[in-house]
Protein backbone atom coordinates (compact mmCIF):
# COMPACT_ATOMS: atom_id res chain seq x y z
CA UNK A 1 0.00 0.00 0.00
CA UNK A 2 2.66 2.47 1.08
CA UNK A 3 4.85 1.41 -1.79
CA UNK A 4 2.09 2.31 -4.25
CA UNK A 5 1.72 5.74 -2.74
CA UNK A 6 5.47 6.23 -2.80
CA UNK A 7 5.62 5.29 -6.44
CA UNK A 8 2.70 7.57 -7.30
CA UNK A 9 4.27 10.49 -5.50
CA UNK A 10 7.57 9.84 -7.24
CA UNK A 11 5.83 9.84 -10.65
CA UNK A 12 4.21 13.17 -9.84
CA UNK A 13 7.54 14.61 -8.76
CA UNK A 14 9.32 13.41 -11.89
CA UNK A 15 6.47 14.77 -14.03
CA UNK A 16 6.77 18.14 -12.29
CA UNK A 17 10.52 18.29 -12.90
CA UNK A 18 10.08 17.31 -16.56
CA UNK A 19 7.43 20.01 -16.94
CA UNK A 20 9.73 22.57 -15.36
CA UNK A 21 12.41 21.59 -17.87
CA UNK A 22 9.90 21.97 -20.70
CA UNK A 23 8.88 25.39 -19.37
CA UNK A 24 12.54 26.44 -19.17
CA UNK A 25 13.01 25.38 -22.79
CA UNK A 26 9.95 27.34 -23.90
CA UNK A 27 11.16 30.42 -22.02
CA UNK A 28 14.63 30.12 -23.57
CA UNK A 29 13.30 29.60 -27.10
CA UNK A 30 10.89 32.53 -26.89
CA UNK A 31 13.48 34.92 -25.52
CA UNK A 32 16.03 33.87 -28.16
CA UNK A 33 13.73 33.65 -31.16
CA UNK A 34 13.90 37.27 -32.17
CA UNK A 35 16.45 37.97 -34.91
CA UNK A 36 17.19 41.34 -33.29
CA UNK A 37 20.48 41.36 -31.47
CA UNK A 38 20.73 42.10 -27.77
CA UNK A 39 24.24 43.46 -28.22
CA UNK A 40 23.12 45.85 -30.96
CA UNK A 41 20.17 46.99 -28.87
CA UNK A 42 22.32 47.57 -25.78
CA UNK A 43 24.88 49.68 -27.60
CA UNK A 44 22.43 51.58 -29.79
CA UNK A 45 22.46 52.30 -33.52
CA UNK A 46 25.64 54.39 -33.46
CA UNK A 47 27.91 51.65 -32.11
CA UNK A 48 30.81 50.48 -34.23
CA UNK A 49 30.64 46.91 -35.62
CA UNK A 50 33.77 46.06 -33.59
CA UNK A 51 32.12 47.12 -30.34
CA UNK A 52 29.01 45.10 -31.15
CA UNK A 53 31.12 42.05 -32.03
CA UNK A 54 33.07 42.46 -28.78
CA UNK A 55 29.93 42.60 -26.69
CA UNK A 56 28.45 39.63 -28.56
CA UNK A 57 31.51 37.65 -27.63
CA UNK A 58 31.35 38.82 -24.02
CA UNK A 59 27.68 37.84 -23.76
CA UNK A 60 28.35 34.51 -25.47
CA UNK A 61 26.02 35.37 -28.35
CA UNK A 62 28.52 34.13 -30.94
CA UNK A 63 28.07 30.53 -29.77
CA UNK A 64 25.60 28.27 -31.60
CA UNK A 65 22.07 28.33 -30.07
CA UNK A 66 22.08 24.77 -28.66
CA UNK A 67 25.34 25.42 -26.86
CA UNK A 68 23.96 28.63 -25.37
CA UNK A 69 20.82 26.70 -24.37
CA UNK A 70 22.76 23.99 -22.54
CA UNK A 71 24.95 26.54 -20.80
CA UNK A 72 21.93 28.63 -19.80
CA UNK A 73 20.08 25.56 -18.51
CA UNK A 74 23.07 24.41 -16.48
CA UNK A 75 23.51 27.90 -14.99
CA UNK A 76 19.82 28.01 -14.08
CA UNK A 77 20.10 24.66 -12.31
CA UNK A 78 23.06 26.00 -10.34
CA UNK A 79 21.05 29.12 -9.48
CA UNK A 80 23.24 31.43 -11.53
CA UNK A 81 20.84 33.51 -13.60
CA UNK A 82 23.46 35.73 -15.19
CA UNK A 83 23.72 39.49 -15.03
CA UNK A 84 21.11 42.14 -15.66
CA UNK A 85 21.50 43.74 -19.07
CA UNK A 86 20.43 47.08 -17.64
CA UNK A 87 22.66 47.64 -14.63
CA UNK A 88 25.04 44.69 -14.78
CA UNK A 89 24.37 43.41 -11.27
CA UNK A 90 23.79 39.67 -10.76
CA UNK A 91 20.15 38.71 -11.34
CA UNK A 92 20.22 36.36 -8.37
CA UNK A 93 21.09 39.26 -6.04
CA UNK A 94 18.32 41.43 -7.51
CA UNK A 95 15.78 38.69 -6.99
CA UNK A 96 17.14 37.79 -3.56
CA UNK A 97 16.59 41.31 -2.28
CA UNK A 98 12.93 41.28 -3.38
CA UNK A 99 11.85 37.66 -2.86
CA UNK A 100 11.23 37.99 0.86
CA UNK A 101 8.82 40.90 0.37
CA UNK A 102 6.74 38.94 -2.11
CA UNK A 103 6.67 35.87 0.11
CA UNK A 104 5.48 37.96 3.08
CA UNK A 105 2.69 39.43 0.96
CA UNK A 106 1.66 35.99 -0.32
CA UNK A 107 1.88 34.47 3.15
CA UNK A 108 -0.31 37.08 4.83
CA UNK A 109 -2.82 36.79 1.99
CA UNK A 110 -2.95 33.02 2.39
CA UNK A 111 -3.50 33.40 6.16
CA UNK A 112 -6.46 35.70 5.54
CA UNK A 113 -7.90 34.13 2.40
CA UNK A 114 -7.87 30.43 3.25
CA UNK A 115 -10.04 30.59 6.42
CA UNK A 116 -12.37 33.09 4.76
CA UNK A 117 -12.81 30.92 1.67
CA UNK A 118 -13.38 27.80 3.78
CA UNK A 119 -16.09 29.51 5.83
CA UNK A 120 -17.78 30.89 2.69
CA UNK A 121 -17.54 27.61 0.79
CA UNK A 122 -18.66 25.37 3.65
CA UNK A 123 -21.59 27.56 4.71
CA UNK A 124 -22.68 27.94 1.08
CA UNK A 125 -22.63 24.16 0.67
CA UNK A 126 -24.55 23.58 3.93
CA UNK A 127 -27.24 26.11 3.00
CA UNK A 128 -27.28 25.00 -0.61
CA UNK A 129 -30.03 26.63 -2.68
CA UNK A 130 -30.68 29.35 -0.11
CA UNK A 131 -30.52 33.07 -0.83
CA UNK A 132 -27.16 33.14 0.96
CA UNK A 133 -25.79 30.42 -1.32
CA UNK A 134 -26.99 32.28 -4.38
CA UNK A 135 -25.42 35.54 -3.20
CA UNK A 136 -22.09 33.80 -2.59
CA UNK A 137 -22.35 32.11 -6.00
CA UNK A 138 -23.10 35.35 -7.83
CA UNK A 139 -20.39 37.15 -5.85
CA UNK A 140 -17.74 34.63 -6.84
CA UNK A 141 -18.69 34.83 -10.54
CA UNK A 142 -18.46 38.63 -10.33
CA UNK A 143 -15.11 38.44 -8.55
CA UNK A 144 -13.52 36.27 -11.22
CA UNK A 145 -14.80 38.41 -14.10
CA UNK A 146 -13.47 41.71 -12.74
CA UNK A 147 -9.91 42.89 -13.43
CA UNK A 148 -7.66 42.98 -10.34
CA UNK A 149 -6.86 46.65 -10.83
CA UNK A 150 -10.56 47.53 -10.54
CA UNK A 151 -10.64 45.85 -7.12
CA UNK A 152 -7.40 47.56 -6.14
CA UNK A 153 -8.41 51.05 -7.28
CA UNK A 154 -11.87 50.70 -5.73
CA UNK A 155 -10.20 49.68 -2.45
CA UNK A 156 -7.91 52.72 -2.62
CA UNK A 157 -10.85 55.01 -3.39
CA UNK A 158 -12.87 53.74 -0.44
CA UNK A 159 -10.26 53.14 2.26
CA UNK A 160 -7.51 55.60 1.39
CA UNK A 161 -9.32 58.49 -0.32
CA UNK A 162 -12.77 58.51 1.29
CA UNK A 163 -12.15 57.05 4.74
CA UNK A 164 -8.44 57.93 5.00
CA UNK A 165 -7.73 54.80 7.05
CA UNK A 166 -4.63 53.74 5.13
CA UNK A 167 -2.07 55.31 2.80
CA UNK A 168 -2.65 54.74 -0.92
CA UNK A 169 0.86 53.40 -1.52
CA UNK A 170 2.75 50.73 0.39
CA UNK A 171 6.01 51.94 1.81
CA UNK A 172 8.18 49.26 3.26
CA UNK A 173 10.36 51.62 5.23
CA UNK A 174 9.85 51.79 8.92
CA UNK A 175 7.24 49.56 10.43
CA UNK A 176 6.64 50.76 13.98
CA UNK A 177 4.32 48.37 15.67
CA UNK A 178 1.33 46.35 14.60
CA UNK A 179 -0.71 49.28 13.37
CA UNK A 180 1.90 50.25 10.79
CA UNK A 181 2.10 46.68 9.52
CA UNK A 182 -1.67 46.53 9.14
CA UNK A 183 -1.70 49.90 7.36
CA UNK A 184 0.99 48.84 4.92
CA UNK A 185 -0.45 45.48 4.02
CA UNK A 186 -4.18 46.17 4.34
CA UNK A 187 -4.96 47.16 0.75
CA UNK A 188 -2.63 44.78 -1.13
CA UNK A 189 -3.82 41.86 1.01
CA UNK A 190 -7.46 42.90 0.65
CA UNK A 191 -7.14 42.99 -3.14
CA UNK A 192 -5.31 39.67 -3.40
CA UNK A 193 -7.75 38.02 -1.01
CA UNK A 194 -10.66 39.17 -3.12
CA UNK A 195 -9.03 37.66 -6.18
CA UNK A 196 -8.33 34.19 -4.80
CA UNK A 197 -11.17 33.71 -2.30
CA UNK A 198 -13.73 33.45 -5.10
CA UNK A 199 -12.03 30.50 -6.78
CA UNK A 200 -11.30 28.75 -3.49
CA UNK A 201 -14.82 29.19 -2.11
CA UNK A 202 -16.35 27.86 -5.34
CA UNK A 203 -14.20 24.74 -5.32
CA UNK A 204 -14.71 24.16 -1.58
CA UNK A 205 -18.45 24.42 -1.99
CA UNK A 206 -18.43 22.02 -4.93
CA UNK A 207 -16.35 19.48 -3.00
CA UNK A 208 -18.60 19.55 0.05
CA UNK A 209 -21.82 19.50 -1.98
CA UNK A 210 -20.49 16.40 -3.68
CA UNK A 211 -19.94 14.63 -0.37
CA UNK A 212 -23.20 15.86 1.15
CA UNK A 213 -25.19 14.30 -1.68
CA UNK A 214 -23.76 10.81 -1.13
CA UNK A 215 -25.88 8.04 0.32
CA UNK A 216 -24.02 7.61 3.60
CA UNK A 217 -24.92 11.19 4.48
CA UNK A 218 -28.53 10.36 3.65
CA UNK A 219 -28.17 7.42 6.03
CA UNK A 220 -26.82 9.66 8.79
CA UNK A 221 -29.72 12.02 8.24
CA UNK A 222 -32.25 9.17 8.46
CA UNK A 223 -30.54 8.03 11.64
CA UNK A 224 -31.50 11.42 13.04
CA UNK A 225 -28.08 13.08 13.26
CA UNK A 226 -28.18 16.86 13.56
CA UNK A 227 -27.06 19.14 10.73
CA UNK A 228 -23.90 20.30 12.51
CA UNK A 229 -22.92 16.73 13.38
CA UNK A 230 -23.47 15.58 9.80
CA UNK A 231 -21.33 18.35 8.33
CA UNK A 232 -18.47 18.28 10.82
CA UNK A 233 -18.37 14.59 11.75
CA UNK A 234 -19.56 12.80 8.62
CA UNK A 235 -18.99 15.00 5.60
CA UNK A 236 -15.89 17.14 6.25
CA UNK A 237 -13.39 14.30 6.77
CA UNK A 238 -14.18 13.01 3.29
CA UNK A 239 -14.08 16.47 1.76
CA UNK A 240 -10.67 17.40 3.19
CA UNK A 241 -8.81 15.98 0.18
CA UNK A 242 -10.71 17.92 -2.48
CA UNK A 243 -10.65 21.02 -0.27
CA UNK A 244 -6.86 20.83 0.18
CA UNK A 245 -6.68 20.42 -3.56
CA UNK A 246 -8.85 23.52 -4.01
CA UNK A 247 -6.65 25.54 -1.65
CA UNK A 248 -3.39 24.62 -3.33
CA UNK A 249 -4.87 25.22 -6.78
CA UNK A 250 -6.37 28.58 -5.86
CA UNK A 251 -3.14 29.77 -4.26
CA UNK A 252 -1.57 29.44 -7.69
CA UNK A 253 -3.87 32.32 -8.72
CA UNK A 254 -1.92 34.43 -6.25
CA UNK A 255 0.91 34.62 -8.79
CA UNK A 256 -1.23 36.40 -11.37
CA UNK A 257 -2.75 38.71 -8.78
CA UNK A 258 0.61 39.56 -7.25
CA UNK A 259 1.85 41.01 -10.56
CA UNK A 260 -0.94 43.59 -10.65
CA UNK A 261 -1.05 44.28 -6.93
CA UNK A 262 2.67 44.89 -6.53
CA UNK A 263 2.58 47.29 -9.48
CA UNK A 264 -0.48 49.24 -8.39
CA UNK A 265 0.68 49.64 -4.78
CA UNK A 266 4.30 50.13 -5.77
CA UNK A 267 5.25 47.22 -3.54
CA UNK A 268 8.93 46.20 -3.89
CA UNK A 269 8.45 42.49 -4.67
CA UNK A 270 9.73 40.29 -7.49
CA UNK A 271 6.61 40.72 -9.62
CA UNK A 272 7.28 44.46 -9.77
CA UNK A 273 10.91 43.63 -10.54
CA UNK A 274 9.83 41.42 -13.43
CA UNK A 275 7.39 43.98 -14.87
CA UNK A 276 10.16 46.57 -14.79
CA UNK A 277 12.45 44.01 -16.45
CA UNK A 278 9.91 43.47 -19.25
CA UNK A 279 9.56 47.18 -19.95
CA UNK A 280 13.35 47.60 -20.18
CA UNK A 281 13.60 44.25 -22.02
CA UNK A 282 16.13 42.97 -19.53
CA UNK A 283 15.92 39.38 -20.76
CA UNK A 284 18.10 37.56 -18.17
CA UNK A 285 16.01 39.12 -15.39
CA UNK A 286 12.75 38.22 -17.16
CA UNK A 287 13.92 34.64 -17.74
CA UNK A 288 14.88 34.15 -14.10
CA UNK A 289 11.66 35.67 -12.74
CA UNK A 290 9.58 33.63 -15.18
CA UNK A 291 11.30 30.43 -14.06
CA UNK A 292 10.74 31.35 -10.43
CA UNK A 293 7.03 32.01 -10.96
CA UNK A 294 6.52 28.90 -13.10
CA UNK A 295 8.39 26.84 -10.50
CA UNK A 296 6.17 28.16 -7.72
CA UNK A 297 3.09 27.51 -9.83
CA UNK A 298 4.17 23.94 -10.59
CA UNK A 299 4.96 23.37 -6.91
CA UNK A 300 1.44 24.42 -5.91
CA UNK A 301 -0.24 22.38 -8.64
CA UNK A 302 1.84 19.33 -7.74
CA UNK A 303 0.97 19.79 -4.08
CA UNK A 304 -2.70 19.92 -5.06
CA UNK A 305 -2.22 16.68 -6.98
CA UNK A 306 -0.47 14.98 -4.08
CA UNK A 307 -3.12 16.15 -1.61
CA UNK A 308 -5.76 14.63 -3.86
CA UNK A 309 -3.88 11.30 -4.04
CA UNK A 310 -3.26 11.10 -0.30
CA UNK A 311 -6.87 11.91 0.52
CA UNK A 312 -8.62 9.71 -2.02
CA UNK A 313 -7.77 6.00 -1.99
CA UNK A 314 -9.53 5.54 -5.34
CA UNK A 315 -6.96 7.71 -7.12
CA UNK A 316 -4.19 5.39 -5.96
CA UNK A 317 -5.32 2.67 -8.30
CA UNK A 318 -5.23 4.61 -11.53
Amino acid at each position, binding site marked *: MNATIGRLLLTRLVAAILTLWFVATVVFVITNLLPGDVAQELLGQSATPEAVAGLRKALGLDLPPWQRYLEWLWNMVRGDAGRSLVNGSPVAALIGSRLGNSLILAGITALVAVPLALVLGITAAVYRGSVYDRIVGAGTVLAVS*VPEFLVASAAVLVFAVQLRWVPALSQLGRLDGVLDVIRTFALPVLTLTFVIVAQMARMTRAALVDVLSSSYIEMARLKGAGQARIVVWHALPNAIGPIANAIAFSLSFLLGGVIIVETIFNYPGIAKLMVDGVSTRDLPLVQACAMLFCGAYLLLVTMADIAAILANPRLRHR
Partner: protein
Amino acid sequence: MSSTTISARRGPMAILARTGRMIMPAIVLFWLAMAFFGYWVAPYDPAGIQDADLFEGMSRKFWLGTDYFGRDMLSRILAGARYTVGISLMATSLAVASGVLLGLAASAIGGLFDAAVSRFLDALISIPSKMFGLVLVAAFGASIPVLVLTLAVIYLPGCYRINRSVAVNVAALDFVAVARARGESTLYIMIREILPNMVGPVLADFGLRFIYVVLLLSSLSFLGLGVQPPQADWGSLVRENMPGLPYGAPAVIMPAIAIASLTIAVNLTIDSLFGRHARDGVR
Protein backbone atom coordinates in the same frame (compact mmCIF):
# COMPACT_ATOMS: atom_id res chain seq x y z
CA MET B 1 -41.07 26.57 -26.27
CA SER B 2 -39.99 28.38 -23.15
CA SER B 3 -40.57 31.74 -24.83
CA THR B 4 -44.31 31.04 -25.13
CA THR B 5 -44.60 30.27 -21.41
CA ILE B 6 -42.73 33.46 -20.61
CA SER B 7 -44.82 35.66 -22.90
CA ALA B 8 -47.99 34.04 -21.55
CA ARG B 9 -47.04 35.22 -18.06
CA ARG B 10 -47.97 38.77 -17.15
CA GLY B 11 -47.45 41.11 -14.25
CA PRO B 12 -44.61 43.34 -13.15
CA MET B 13 -42.36 40.50 -11.93
CA ALA B 14 -42.43 38.74 -15.29
CA ILE B 15 -41.64 41.97 -17.11
CA LEU B 16 -38.79 42.62 -14.71
CA ALA B 17 -37.40 39.12 -15.24
CA ARG B 18 -37.71 39.47 -19.00
CA THR B 19 -35.93 42.83 -19.16
CA GLY B 20 -33.31 41.46 -16.74
CA ARG B 21 -32.62 38.68 -19.21
CA MET B 22 -32.29 41.20 -22.03
CA ILE B 23 -29.93 43.61 -20.27
CA MET B 24 -26.79 41.47 -20.33
CA PRO B 25 -26.91 40.58 -24.06
CA ALA B 26 -27.77 44.24 -24.72
CA ILE B 27 -24.59 45.38 -22.94
CA VAL B 28 -22.53 42.88 -24.95
CA LEU B 29 -24.08 44.11 -28.21
CA PHE B 30 -23.56 47.73 -27.17
CA TRP B 31 -19.82 47.24 -26.64
CA LEU B 32 -19.54 45.23 -29.86
CA ALA B 33 -21.16 48.13 -31.72
CA MET B 34 -18.83 50.60 -29.97
CA ALA B 35 -15.84 48.59 -31.15
CA PHE B 36 -16.86 49.54 -34.69
CA PHE B 37 -18.53 52.94 -34.26
CA GLY B 38 -17.28 54.20 -30.88
CA TYR B 39 -14.87 56.64 -32.44
CA TRP B 40 -17.67 58.36 -34.37
CA VAL B 41 -20.29 58.18 -31.61
CA ALA B 42 -17.97 59.90 -29.12
CA PRO B 43 -19.32 63.36 -28.15
CA TYR B 44 -15.84 64.95 -28.26
CA ASP B 45 -12.59 64.25 -30.06
CA PRO B 46 -11.03 61.47 -27.90
CA ALA B 47 -7.56 62.99 -28.33
CA GLY B 48 -8.67 66.63 -28.12
CA ILE B 49 -7.89 68.62 -24.97
CA GLN B 50 -11.11 70.23 -23.76
CA ASP B 51 -11.71 73.49 -21.98
CA ALA B 52 -11.74 71.75 -18.60
CA ASP B 53 -9.68 71.06 -15.50
CA LEU B 54 -7.57 67.92 -15.17
CA PHE B 55 -9.34 65.00 -13.48
CA GLU B 56 -12.66 66.82 -13.45
CA GLY B 57 -15.56 64.99 -11.83
CA MET B 58 -18.72 63.91 -13.61
CA SER B 59 -20.79 66.74 -15.04
CA ARG B 60 -23.52 67.46 -17.60
CA LYS B 61 -20.82 68.56 -20.01
CA PHE B 62 -18.38 65.71 -19.40
CA TRP B 63 -20.47 62.72 -18.34
CA LEU B 64 -17.56 60.67 -17.04
CA GLY B 65 -15.27 63.57 -16.16
CA THR B 66 -11.94 64.40 -17.78
CA ASP B 67 -8.54 62.72 -17.78
CA TYR B 68 -5.02 63.84 -16.86
CA PHE B 69 -4.82 66.07 -19.96
CA GLY B 70 -8.34 67.43 -19.60
CA ARG B 71 -9.69 65.16 -22.33
CA ASP B 72 -13.27 63.86 -22.26
CA MET B 73 -13.31 60.45 -20.54
CA LEU B 74 -16.55 59.20 -22.13
CA SER B 75 -15.15 59.81 -25.61
CA ARG B 76 -11.87 58.11 -24.71
CA ILE B 77 -13.66 55.04 -23.35
CA LEU B 78 -15.95 54.80 -26.39
CA ALA B 79 -12.96 55.12 -28.72
CA GLY B 80 -10.95 52.65 -26.59
CA ALA B 81 -13.58 49.95 -27.16
CA ARG B 82 -12.05 49.53 -30.59
CA TYR B 83 -8.81 48.27 -29.04
CA THR B 84 -10.12 46.31 -26.06
CA VAL B 85 -12.99 44.60 -27.89
CA GLY B 86 -11.28 44.49 -31.28
CA ILE B 87 -7.96 42.99 -30.20
CA SER B 88 -9.70 40.56 -27.84
CA LEU B 89 -12.13 39.43 -30.55
CA MET B 90 -9.32 38.86 -33.04
CA ALA B 91 -7.17 36.99 -30.52
CA THR B 92 -10.08 34.87 -29.28
CA SER B 93 -11.16 34.01 -32.82
CA LEU B 94 -7.62 33.00 -33.67
CA ALA B 95 -7.23 30.87 -30.53
CA VAL B 96 -10.64 29.21 -30.87
CA ALA B 97 -10.29 28.60 -34.62
CA SER B 98 -6.89 26.94 -34.23
CA GLY B 99 -8.03 25.13 -31.08
CA VAL B 100 -11.07 23.71 -32.88
CA LEU B 101 -9.03 22.78 -35.95
CA LEU B 102 -6.30 21.05 -33.95
CA GLY B 103 -8.84 19.38 -31.67
CA LEU B 104 -10.78 18.10 -34.67
CA ALA B 105 -7.64 16.86 -36.34
CA ALA B 106 -6.47 15.15 -33.15
CA SER B 107 -9.80 13.37 -32.71
CA ALA B 108 -10.12 12.39 -36.37
CA ILE B 109 -6.50 11.34 -36.93
CA GLY B 110 -5.81 10.03 -33.43
CA GLY B 111 -2.72 7.96 -32.73
CA LEU B 112 0.69 9.54 -32.52
CA PHE B 113 -0.48 12.93 -33.85
CA ASP B 114 -3.09 13.20 -31.11
CA ALA B 115 -0.62 12.13 -28.42
CA ALA B 116 2.12 14.52 -29.55
CA VAL B 117 -0.11 17.59 -29.89
CA SER B 118 -1.90 16.86 -26.61
CA ARG B 119 1.32 16.40 -24.66
CA PHE B 120 2.88 19.54 -26.06
CA LEU B 121 -0.10 21.82 -25.51
CA ASP B 122 -0.87 20.36 -22.08
CA ALA B 123 2.67 21.19 -20.99
CA LEU B 124 2.15 24.77 -22.18
CA ILE B 125 -0.83 25.09 -19.80
CA SER B 126 1.62 24.82 -16.91
CA ILE B 127 2.86 28.35 -17.67
CA PRO B 128 0.58 30.84 -15.88
CA SER B 129 -1.10 33.08 -18.45
CA LYS B 130 0.15 36.45 -17.13
CA MET B 131 3.69 35.10 -16.90
CA PHE B 132 3.48 33.77 -20.45
CA GLY B 133 2.24 37.17 -21.60
CA LEU B 134 5.10 39.00 -19.88
CA VAL B 135 7.74 36.70 -21.40
CA LEU B 136 6.26 37.04 -24.91
CA VAL B 137 6.04 40.82 -24.64
CA ALA B 138 9.60 41.01 -23.28
CA ALA B 139 10.81 39.06 -26.30
CA PHE B 140 8.70 40.52 -29.10
CA GLY B 141 7.60 43.97 -27.93
CA ALA B 142 4.02 45.18 -27.73
CA SER B 143 2.74 46.14 -31.18
CA ILE B 144 -0.91 45.27 -31.84
CA PRO B 145 -0.25 42.30 -34.18
CA VAL B 146 2.15 40.88 -31.60
CA LEU B 147 -0.46 41.37 -28.87
CA VAL B 148 -3.11 39.53 -30.89
CA LEU B 149 -0.74 36.62 -31.56
CA THR B 150 0.48 36.59 -27.94
CA LEU B 151 -3.04 36.38 -26.54
CA ALA B 152 -4.01 33.74 -29.10
CA VAL B 153 -0.97 31.58 -28.30
CA ILE B 154 -1.59 31.84 -24.55
CA TYR B 155 -5.19 30.65 -24.78
CA LEU B 156 -4.72 28.11 -27.58
CA PRO B 157 -3.77 25.18 -25.26
CA GLY B 158 -6.84 25.54 -23.05
CA CYS B 159 -8.98 25.93 -26.13
CA TYR B 160 -7.47 22.85 -27.73
CA ARG B 161 -7.95 20.76 -24.63
CA ILE B 162 -11.67 21.44 -24.32
CA ASN B 163 -12.40 21.17 -28.05
CA ARG B 164 -10.46 17.96 -28.34
CA SER B 165 -12.42 16.35 -25.52
CA VAL B 166 -15.70 17.42 -27.14
CA ALA B 167 -14.54 16.22 -30.56
CA VAL B 168 -13.31 12.89 -29.21
CA ASN B 169 -16.74 12.24 -27.71
CA VAL B 170 -18.44 13.01 -31.02
CA ALA B 171 -15.90 10.97 -32.98
CA ALA B 172 -16.81 7.88 -30.94
CA LEU B 173 -20.43 8.00 -32.13
CA ASP B 174 -21.83 5.55 -34.66
CA PHE B 175 -22.43 7.95 -37.54
CA VAL B 176 -18.72 8.81 -37.60
CA ALA B 177 -17.87 5.10 -37.77
CA VAL B 178 -20.36 4.79 -40.63
CA ALA B 179 -18.71 7.69 -42.45
CA ARG B 180 -15.33 6.05 -42.01
CA ALA B 181 -16.73 2.75 -43.34
CA ARG B 182 -18.10 4.67 -46.35
CA GLY B 183 -14.51 5.61 -47.04
CA GLU B 184 -14.85 9.37 -46.45
CA SER B 185 -11.63 11.37 -46.11
CA THR B 186 -10.38 12.54 -42.72
CA LEU B 187 -11.01 16.15 -43.72
CA TYR B 188 -14.62 15.35 -44.68
CA ILE B 189 -15.18 13.59 -41.37
CA MET B 190 -13.70 16.52 -39.44
CA ILE B 191 -15.72 19.22 -41.18
CA ARG B 192 -18.99 17.55 -42.13
CA GLU B 193 -19.48 14.92 -39.43
CA ILE B 194 -17.83 16.08 -36.22
CA LEU B 195 -17.76 19.89 -36.41
CA PRO B 196 -21.54 20.47 -36.78
CA ASN B 197 -22.10 18.48 -33.59
CA MET B 198 -19.86 20.63 -31.41
CA VAL B 199 -21.19 24.09 -32.20
CA GLY B 200 -22.76 24.67 -28.75
CA PRO B 201 -19.67 23.89 -26.63
CA VAL B 202 -17.45 25.80 -29.07
CA LEU B 203 -19.59 28.93 -28.74
CA ALA B 204 -19.71 28.70 -24.93
CA ASP B 205 -15.94 28.23 -24.88
CA PHE B 206 -15.52 31.21 -27.21
CA GLY B 207 -17.39 33.46 -24.78
CA LEU B 208 -15.45 32.34 -21.71
CA ARG B 209 -12.14 32.52 -23.56
CA PHE B 210 -13.07 36.06 -24.68
CA ILE B 211 -13.44 37.09 -21.02
CA TYR B 212 -9.99 35.75 -20.14
CA VAL B 213 -8.49 37.48 -23.16
CA VAL B 214 -10.10 40.83 -22.27
CA LEU B 215 -8.83 40.55 -18.69
CA LEU B 216 -5.30 39.58 -19.73
CA LEU B 217 -5.09 42.29 -22.40
CA SER B 218 -6.32 44.87 -19.90
CA SER B 219 -3.79 43.67 -17.32
CA LEU B 220 -0.94 43.90 -19.82
CA SER B 221 -2.03 47.38 -20.88
CA PHE B 222 -2.43 48.38 -17.25
CA LEU B 223 1.18 47.31 -16.66
CA GLY B 224 2.22 49.47 -19.63
CA LEU B 225 3.10 46.36 -21.66
CA GLY B 226 0.00 46.14 -23.84
CA VAL B 227 -1.49 48.74 -26.19
CA GLN B 228 1.02 51.60 -26.41
CA PRO B 229 0.28 55.35 -26.43
CA PRO B 230 -1.05 57.31 -28.25
CA GLN B 231 -3.44 54.41 -28.82
CA ALA B 232 -5.30 53.54 -25.65
CA ASP B 233 -7.48 50.59 -24.70
CA TRP B 234 -9.35 50.51 -21.40
CA GLY B 235 -6.41 49.04 -19.48
CA SER B 236 -4.14 51.84 -20.74
CA LEU B 237 -6.78 54.40 -19.75
CA VAL B 238 -6.70 53.13 -16.16
CA ARG B 239 -2.90 53.20 -16.18
CA GLU B 240 -2.47 56.71 -17.57
CA ASN B 241 -4.98 58.13 -15.09
CA MET B 242 -3.59 56.42 -11.97
CA PRO B 243 -2.19 59.77 -10.68
CA GLY B 244 -5.82 60.89 -10.32
CA LEU B 245 -6.61 58.11 -7.86
CA PRO B 246 -5.78 60.14 -4.73
CA TYR B 247 -8.27 62.79 -5.92
CA GLY B 248 -10.95 60.19 -6.48
CA ALA B 249 -11.15 61.04 -10.18
CA PRO B 250 -13.73 59.06 -12.16
CA ALA B 251 -11.11 58.84 -14.93
CA VAL B 252 -9.42 55.98 -13.05
CA ILE B 253 -12.42 53.90 -12.14
CA MET B 254 -14.64 54.37 -15.22
CA PRO B 255 -12.50 52.48 -17.76
CA ALA B 256 -12.14 49.66 -15.21
CA ILE B 257 -15.91 49.60 -14.82
CA ALA B 258 -16.23 49.44 -18.60
CA ILE B 259 -14.06 46.30 -18.59
CA ALA B 260 -16.07 44.80 -15.76
CA SER B 261 -19.38 45.57 -17.51
CA LEU B 262 -18.16 43.78 -20.63
CA THR B 263 -16.79 40.68 -18.87
CA ILE B 264 -19.72 40.31 -16.48
CA ALA B 265 -22.24 40.79 -19.29
CA VAL B 266 -20.54 38.16 -21.45
CA ASN B 267 -20.34 35.80 -18.48
CA LEU B 268 -24.03 36.09 -17.61
CA THR B 269 -25.08 35.92 -21.27
CA ILE B 270 -23.27 32.60 -21.59
CA ASP B 271 -24.97 31.41 -18.42
CA SER B 272 -28.40 32.20 -19.79
CA LEU B 273 -27.64 30.70 -23.22
CA PHE B 274 -25.77 27.54 -22.29
CA GLY B 275 -26.49 26.98 -18.59
CA ARG B 276 -24.20 27.53 -15.67
CA HIS B 277 -22.37 24.21 -16.00
CA ALA B 278 -20.83 25.35 -19.31
CA ARG B 279 -18.19 27.22 -17.33
CA ASP B 280 -16.94 24.26 -15.34
CA GLY B 281 -15.28 22.52 -18.25
CA VAL B 282 -12.94 25.42 -18.86
CA ARG B 283 -9.63 25.61 -17.07
